């Protein structure tokens, strides 16, 4: 009885996660410039990864409950992988966006750049900006 309920919840979580991962691909293909593509490609994959890891954790807990000792190892390592994704994905997106702005890519349809002159240009001294 409880095994079937867990199976249904796992399938729903997998469907939500795969749907958002597909949206990431479609948004990456359809959006007009770098910053909106970054918005689609990073946030959707992070959200979908949370749901897929949640379904794997539920399956591992079910295996552990039914007496398979591999289930606990599966749960702990999946949570480790989820923490690695959650820490590294937004940080990498921030680094890419900063590099894109400093290398001179303008947003689509932009008229005024409010960050003009605030970040370090190539002629500015690098040592002063390194500590920020």
């Amino acid at each position, binding site marked *: 009885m409880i095994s079937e309920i867990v199976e249904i919840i796992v399938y729903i979580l997998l469907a939500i996660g795969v749907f958002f991962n597909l949206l990431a691909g479609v948004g990456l293909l359809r959006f007009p410039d770098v910053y909106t593509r970054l918005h689609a490609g990073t946030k959707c994959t992070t959200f979908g990864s949370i749901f897929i890891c949640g379904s794997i954790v539920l399956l591992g807990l079910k295996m552990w409950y039914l007496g398979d000792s591999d289930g606990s190892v599966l749960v702990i390592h999946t949570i480790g992988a989820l923490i690695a*994704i959650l820490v590294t994905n937004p940080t990498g997106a921030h*680094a890419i966006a900063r590099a894109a702005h400093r290398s001179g890519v303008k947003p689509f349809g932009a008229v005024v750049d409010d960050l003009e002159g605030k970040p370090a240009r190539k002629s500015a001294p690098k040592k002063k900006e390194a500590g920020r």
Partner: protein
Amino acid sequence: MMEIESIYLIILGLLILSIVLCIIRVFKGPTAPDRVVGLDTINTLVIVGMLVFGIATRSVIYIDVAIVYALLSYISTLFIAKYLEGGEF
């Protein structure tokens, strides 16, 4: 050969379809940061695919590989961003 349930094969197929869309963006991208965004998204999708394959075959080694892949791809993304920025390492 261990038996794999067909629901995981369908999910892996959909993840591969998403990876193919990202590869199209990597080849089309007008500027260099577009390509880097595509590669970063492909890295995350490959990590998720490894997790799904690990639960499909009930083996933990794929999930360990996924953790190491996540950390190494993060380092590579940071270095490519630093290179695009024009700074010295």
